[in-house]
Every structure is written in C-alpha cells, then in structure tokens.
C-alpha cells in the first residue's frame, strides 16, 4: 500500500506498533500470514514451502533482524516459521549481508553498501517475489542497522527494464484520458515517476534502457524541471550516482504529492485493475500521496506550489504553531534633550528637558498570543550601550518617512568600482554607518558610510595612559593614527560569500568557501574566532537581531545556529535536500528561515531545531529571504525571477510578484513593512506594494484545510516602480532608519 493517509485503516493492528518507518511492504511479509491478506496489495508473502531465492533470503533476514531489534517476538516467530529460516542461517547471513556485495551484482563493487539488489536478467516480468521494499531513512531508528537499511534501501527490480517505457506510456495514456479536473492533479505524477524510474534503471545498470527511456519521455516534463533533467541526463551509470548527494537523497526520500481523494481513487482503480501494476509498486515505494478531501486543484494552483525537489509539503508539516509575533520591547527612558536635534535649536525654541517613557509603539500590556515568551530562548541582556542604541533608534524612527504607493523612497546606490566581478556579499549596519563587502579574493573590506572614519583601538600601553573617567572615553580609546576610510580584513582562504554586522556594531561575521565562519572585531579590525563546522562552502550567515546568536548555511545541506562564545554549533537544522543558500533570522530571533537549492524554504524553531514550515513553489534555487518587520510574512526570491510572499502563521503562499527577469539576490522590507524592495541581477531595483498584498490576504478565509488559494495575478498592480542601474546588478538592499533605500552592487562593465 502506498503510504497514504486513508490506507492506515487497512493495516492490521500489529503494524501500528511498529515504528512508522517500517513500510507496509515489509510488514506484509511478517504480518501477512497472521492477518488477512491486504486485498489491494499485489504482494505475495515469501514463497511458501520452496527455498526462497538468495535475495529474498537476504531481505527476510534483514527484516527478521529489524523485528527482533524492535522486540516484536511474535512476528519474529511467525516469519521464521513461514520463511523456513533457521537461527544460525540468520546470523551467518547477517555477517554476509554486511560484507561485500553479492556475487551476481554486476561490476563487483565491493564496498558499495547500497548495491544490494540482484539483477535478474529474466526477460519475463518477474512475479512479485521481489517484494517492493519501501525504505524511509529520514525517521528515527533504522540508522543503526546497516544490514537492514542496506537491503531495504536498494532499488528493487520492478519487472523487466525494457518494459519501463511501456509502463510509463500506459500511465501517460491513462492520465490523458481522464476528466480535465483530474488530469492536472494526476499529471503531477509524471515528474517523480519519471525520475525514479530513470534512476532505477541506471542503478540497476540498464544503461541503454535508461537512455532510451530518458530520450523518449524527458521532453514531456514540465519546463521548470529542466535543470534537474539536465543533471539527470549526465548520469548514466550507477557510479555517477555515488558522488551526487542530492540525487541520493532524492532517491531515499519520498516525493510528496497532494492529490484530491477523487483523483486518487481514480488512479488507484486504474492501476490495480491491470495485472501489470509495476507503476503502482513504484508509487508505493517512492511517492507519498497526501490525500485531501475537496475539489481537485487546477493546473495553475498546482504549478504555483510545485517545483521543489521533494514535491510539496505535507499538510501536517505546516500546521505546527509558530510564534511569529515580535518580542516586547523593553521600556527605556528617553531623555528628550535636544543635543542632536539641531534644526529645532536653530529656531530658538526653548529646550524642554522632559523625560518620557517610550515603549516603541507597543501600547498594550497584554501578551500578543502570537509572540513567543520573552525567555523562550535565552537572549543577551541589554547593556548600557545597547540602551543608548535603542534611544538613538527611537529618535531616528520619529523622523522616519512614511512610505506608500504615493510616497516612494529615494534610492541611494553604492556602486563598487574596480571589483572585477569579485563582490560576493554586502551588508550594512542597522544605523547605516558602516558597509562591509566580501570579495572573491577572500578579503573583507569595511567602509565608513558617514564622514566619520574608521579607527582602531589603541594599544595596551597607550590605553593605560588615558583618563578613564572622562566623558568621551569612548573616543579616547581610539587611535587617531589609524583613521582611514576603509579597512581590509584578511584571513579567509576562499571567496567570502556572506557578511553580517552585529547589532551593536562591534563584530562582523563573514562566511567563506573555505568552510569557516569568522568573527571579526570592529574595534581592532582583527579576526577573533574562526568557527569550523561546515567543511564545505558556507553560502550565507547572519547575526540574530539581538546579537550573540548567528546562523550559517552551506553546501553540506544544513544550517547551523551558533553562539559567539561556543566553538561548536548549538543547533543543526538538517532536512534540506540540497545546499542551504540563504539563512535569515525572524525578528523575534526564535525562528530561522533557510532557503535552499532544492527550491524549498524551511522555517526552523531555534528552541528545539524542528522544521515548522516548508514552503514550496519556487522553480529555482532561492537566493534571498526577507521577513516583514511585523514578523508575520516572509518574502523569498530565487533564480526564476519571482518573489513569493508567504504567510507564516498559516503556512501558505499569499502572493507572487513577477517582473524581474533574472535572479533576485536581495529583498528588503521598508521599516514599517509597507514597501518591499527587490534587487536583481537584471540591474534593476523594483518596489512592490507589500501592504496591499498583505491586506488582501487578511480578509481571506484560510480555514480551507486544503490550503489552496487562488493567487490573483496582480503583479502589475503591486509594482510601484522599476529603477534601472546602468549595468550594476543589485547585491544588497537596506532601508535606513528613516526609510531611505540604500542599494549596493559592483559595476559590471560588460
């Protein structure tokens, strides 16, 4: 049985005690004899009586061990009895099993733990002795049983390879003949089936059949899968698969499809009518069909959600509660002495020295139900310097320009000249006083945006001599001799792909292709720590909005949460199928969003490392993420040139902004969230009316369990302006505290 939700009822009670990863196929072997046979299952139990074949025996042994380990003694007895396995056989087989490959495996790859399948060269289609073994590596438990997982993980031979084309064509004909409303949904099957069948052929060394299969059917696939297909096209032998982690993960994880109940029934009936239900087996093995009750989806709805390497997210994945509200700001006394407000002084107004308590706008004393508790995750306490910063922040925010469709921000573009296409990362401090650039020559350069120059702290000998009680001690500790407009930080040994300032402007993080993340001090402009953990290029890093924590994501397909005072990561966010290219903290620092090359965005909970949201819909690797300032929404941009808007609370896509023609590398919301700015490789900055996009969402009813919404095609209305640079791709965007938009990029003279 495919692991579909309505299939649960048909399983016998015994299976429920097993961990969920145990597939229905294997449980059939053990439990089948005890309970009634499953009517729809095409499996037969292990052949009664006659000695099972070599590979079946391996399988049975492995299953036996698995059952033993999980203390399912009755099943063990039954299986042993039925399969005619002796105690000793099992042990010897176990040692064999974990040893070298089987004799009849082509090629004799001795150390391949994965190649446990025998290739039967029978021309006639096999009977169902080769039971389809489903395998899920992702859930807990099976990892400590290499022999079981070895056997179970193989692609078992589903019938005659030369007939694969026939199977696929058969399915294709069927799907084309169903009603329109079902056709779109069932067409989702094509891509995963195609890839899995192709990989199976390659894995079992049927190279010619694989090539023919590919040629015949690759053109039918959706256009947004073309990149994947190109990669597949180059894989014609099993050895090619070994180095490709992404495809290995694809093989072992299950592609999720969401199909309405009606369409599913249709499919099931069709595939079970025929005697030759190879496709059914493959579906059971590699696909996870998430059934929902309701109207079948239209093609456009499906297209908007599909595109990821693992299918869509299962419904229950996006149902976890996410605390997307903001943390309460601490109450700080704001002295209203107008030293900094020169305009008013000029008018000669009397200065009123009145202190006022300003709680940064949150007037209500009640806890926002959507906000996390203050102490949900430990956060650093506010130091005096932080309080001063906050006061500055509040003062600046009073001067903030309110943006809107009639009031667009001015854009100030910082162009890096003579960077020779080497600019790979940019960041601004929150108060826009410093700018950092990461370069392909492994340097990090820091510039001062304001006229105030960058200075280093004095040496210890000199520091001894200054007056520590003076008011301007923070100025005196700086060494004037080292003043310069920019400083260069050396240390990395590979291009620097991510830079991030700390909120208190004392530290700078940089992540590089050399696998390390470095923490630099902006007081001495030297490197303080190198965090080693990813051993592969680290594509992005970001400080938490409160400092102390930072997140990094890289080629090893995980994102890591670090604290500056721990040399090892505190959390590892694993789950993506391909590189993590973009990592962003939620404004309340309790969640981390990661965008990946597998075209999904995942939202992770910092507290326990769980993935609480999976957003699919992009058709290309995701390169930019931005949280809205109120924490409720997420915007993402990818190589397909679209910006997608997501509602975090409900876990749904709420908007699609089309317009860019090339990869979007930068996204930023304005300070109050009314405008979303996006910068792209097509040398433009576009401004979108995010307020309108989100308002339309508020009124919609999200109670539909299917979560399918019709995305209005209103990109044109939401686009407020397109601003071209001469020939400079936009690498970074930043709204100053007063809502001036700063953009940065390297001039590209071609």
């Amino acid at each position: 049985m495919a692991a579909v939700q309505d299939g649960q009822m048909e399983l016998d009670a015994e299976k429920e005690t097993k961990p969920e990863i145990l597939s229905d196929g294997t449980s059939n072997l053990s439990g089948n004899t005890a309970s009634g046979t499953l009517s729809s299952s095409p499996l037969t139990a292990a052949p009664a009586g006659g000695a099972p074949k070599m590979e079946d025996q391996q399988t049975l042994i492995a299953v036996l061990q698995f059952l033993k380990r999980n203390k399912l003694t009755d099943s063990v007895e039954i299986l042993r009895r039925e399969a005619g396995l002796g105690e000793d056989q099992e042990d010897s087989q176990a040692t064999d099993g974990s040893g070298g490959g089987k004799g009849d495996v082509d090629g004799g790859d001795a150390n391949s733990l994965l190649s446990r399948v025998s290739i039967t060269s029978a021309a006639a289609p096999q009977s169902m002795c080769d039971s389809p073994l489903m395998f899920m590596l992702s859930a807990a438990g099976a990892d400590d049983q290499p022999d079981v997982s070895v056997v179970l993980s193989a692609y078992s031979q589903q019938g005659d390879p030369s007939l694969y084309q026939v199977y696929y064509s058969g399915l294709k004909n069927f799907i084309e003949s169903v009603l329109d409303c079902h056709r779109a949904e069932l067409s989702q099957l094509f891509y995963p089936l195609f890839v899995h069948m192709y990989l199976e052929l390659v894995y079992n060394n049927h190279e010619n059949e694989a090539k023919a299969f590919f040629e015949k059917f690759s053109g039918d696939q959706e256009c947004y899968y073309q990149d994947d297909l190109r990669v597949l096209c180059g894989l014609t032998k099993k050895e090619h698969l070994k180095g490709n982690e992404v495809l290995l993960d694809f093989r072992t994880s299950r592609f999720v499809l969401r199909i309405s109940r009606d369409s599913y029934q249709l499919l099931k009936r069709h595939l079970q009518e025929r005697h030759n239900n190879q496709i059914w087996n493959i579906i059971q093995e590699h696909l996870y069909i998430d059934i929902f009750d309701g109207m079948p989806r239209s093609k456009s709805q499906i297209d908007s959600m599909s595109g990821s390497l693992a299918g869509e997210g299962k419904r229950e994945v996006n149902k976890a509660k996410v605390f997307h509200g903001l943390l309460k700001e601490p109450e700080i006394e704001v002295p209203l002495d107008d030293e900094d407000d020169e305009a008013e002084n000029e008018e000669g107004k009397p200065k009123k020295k009145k202190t006022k308590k300003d709680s940064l706008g949150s007037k209500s004393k009640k806890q926002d139900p959507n906000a996390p508790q203050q102490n949900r995750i430990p956060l650093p306490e506010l130091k005096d310097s932080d309080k001063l910063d906050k006061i500055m922040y509040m003062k600046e925010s009073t001067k903030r320009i309110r943006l809107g469709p009639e009031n667009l921000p001015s854009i100030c573009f910082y162009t890096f000249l003579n960077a020779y296409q080497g600019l790979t990362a940019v960041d601004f401090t929150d108060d826009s006083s410093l700018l950092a650039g990461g370069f392909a020559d492994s340097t990090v350069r820091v510039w001062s945006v304001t006229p105030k120059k960058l200075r280093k702290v004095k040496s210890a000998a000199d520091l001894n001599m200054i007056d520590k009680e003076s008011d301007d001690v923070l100025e005196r500790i700086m060494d004037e001799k080292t003043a310069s407009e920019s400083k260069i930080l050396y240390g990395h040994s590979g291009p620097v792909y991510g830079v991030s300032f700390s909120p208190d402007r004392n530290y700078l993080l940089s992540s590089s292709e050399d696998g390390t993340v470095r923490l630099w001090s902006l007081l001495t402009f030297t490197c303080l720590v190198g965090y080693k953990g990813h051993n592969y290029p680290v594509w992005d890093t970001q400080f938490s909005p409160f400092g102390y924590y930072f997140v990094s994501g890289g080629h090893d397909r995980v994102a890591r949460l670090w604290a500056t005072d721990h040399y090892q990561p505190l959390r590892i966010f694993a789950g993506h199928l391909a590189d993590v290219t973009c990592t962003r903290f939620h404004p309340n620092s309790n969640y981390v969003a990661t965008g990946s090359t597998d075209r999904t965005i995942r939202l992770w909970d910092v507290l326990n490392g769980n993935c609480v949201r999976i957003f699919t819909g992009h058709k290309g690797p995701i390169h930019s993420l931005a949280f809205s300032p109120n924490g409720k929404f997420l915007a993402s941009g990818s190589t397909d040139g679209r910006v997608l808007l997501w509602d975090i609370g409900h876990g749904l896509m709420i908007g699609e902004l089309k317009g860019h023609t090339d990869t979007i590398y930068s996204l930023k919301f304005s300070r109050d969230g009314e405008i979303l700015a996006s910068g792209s490789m097509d040398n433009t900055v576009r401004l979108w009316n995010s307020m309108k996009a989100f308002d339309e969402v508020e009124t919609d009813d999200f109670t539909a369990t299917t979560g399918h919404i019709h995305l209005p095609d209103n990109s044109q209305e939401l686009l407020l302006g397109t601003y071209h640079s001469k020939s400079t791709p936009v690498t970074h965007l930043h709204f100053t505290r007063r809502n001036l938009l700063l953009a940065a990029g390297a001039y590209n003279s071609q």
Partner: protein
Amino acid sequence: GAHAKMASPKTVPKDAQVMMQILKDMGITEYEPRVINQMLEFTYRYITTIIEDAKIYSTHAKKSTVDADDIRLAIQCRVDQSFISPPPRDFLLDIARQKNQTPLPLIKPYTGPRLPPDRYCLTAPNYRLKSLQKKVSSSAGRITVPRLSVGAVSSRPSTPTLGTPSVQTVGTKVGTPVSLTGQRFTVQIPSSQAASVKSATPTTPTVQNVLINPSLIGSKNILITTNMVSQNSSGDSTSLKRKHEDEDDYDAL
C-alpha cells in the same frame, strides 16, 4: 575578461570540441574561453592519475594488463580522497537530532565580549621569542633590535606584517585585543662569531631563534625565515623549523 567569441570549430582540436559539447549539453552557454583549457587540463590530470593508480593495482594483482576492474578500483579510491561529498542525509539528521536535544545554554550576564575559550580563538599571539641567554658574549659590539618579519608564501594577501616587538613590555602591536597583558619578549642576540654561521645566505637580515606556535596561527601562509647562527644556537637548530602554513589544497582541483 568577459566571454570572448568562441573559436571557430574548424580550428579547435577535437578534445576541446568535446568539452564545448559537454558545456552545451549541461546548458552552459556563456563561459570564458579559458574554461575549456582548464577542463582539458583537469581531465588530463585526472585520467593519468587514475590510469597510473590502476597500473599499480594491476601489477599488485599480478595481472599482465590493466583491466576494467583496476580502473574501477582506482576511481573508487580517488573518489574518497579527492572528491569528498558532504555527509549523507541520514547521518546529518542523526547528528542534528542529537545536537538539538540539548537545551540552549543560558547566557551569563555582564561578561564582556562573549568569545569561546582562548584556545578556540585566534586572538593569541602567534609567535614568541626565545628567552635571553646569558651566554651572549660581550665582545659583540652592537646590540641590534631584532626584527621579525613575516612574509607570505603565496600570492594570497592573507598575512599582515607584524610589528616589531621591542624589548620592553609589549604584546599589543600584534593586535590582539584580548591578551593585552604585557608580554615580555627577550631576544637572543646573535653572537658575532661569523665563522660559525652555518646557514645559507640569509634572505633578510633579521630574525633569530623565533619559535612559532603553529596552532595559534590564524592566517595561513606565514613563512618565517630564520637564521641559524653560531654554536650557541646549534642546540636550538632542531627547534627551528621552517614553519609554513600553506595548506596543501593549492593542488586542489
């Protein structure tokens, strides 16, 4: 340089044409012309390495010719060495589960800069000078302040030039914000017996007897040139090593 126009197919050797076709098949339409050369060089080196390894394996197995099994074995062994791929997903999920079970540590208040323990930081001085020995002969006239110069091994701009440590209490010129306590460096003055100079021509008129603690070197590619001078220091010659920290991944693909 940008993507120049491609060489016309007629004049391009066959191997290069194969490379161009590969790029086209993988959907890459714009590339610098030297990419072809790089691909050819890589291919040549990879193939010859594999074949050489395979020859070794086949002679080890006492076969007369190299056959497919040898090549396969050679490829497998090289894959593990050179093309290391990231860990598999189940392993990552496993360690993630372990790591994520420990609760987040509480943050101690008022602790100043929050950095890992010193041995995990790059803030320690990455050299120290040997202590002054009393055997310095007084016939030496001048006492020169030794200079420590640090030069880069390769063209990577990764080494700052360290300042000159003077003999009094210093430690700060090396730019270490944390270890601001005075470090006293005493320096061994080279003896003036030039006859016993064993070293090769010194490249720089500097540096005697510098001990370097390589584990503290943050930036790579530091080459310290040292002079071994006189029998005073002969006992130290073994401790002097040419410490260069370039990693051997320059030979990487």
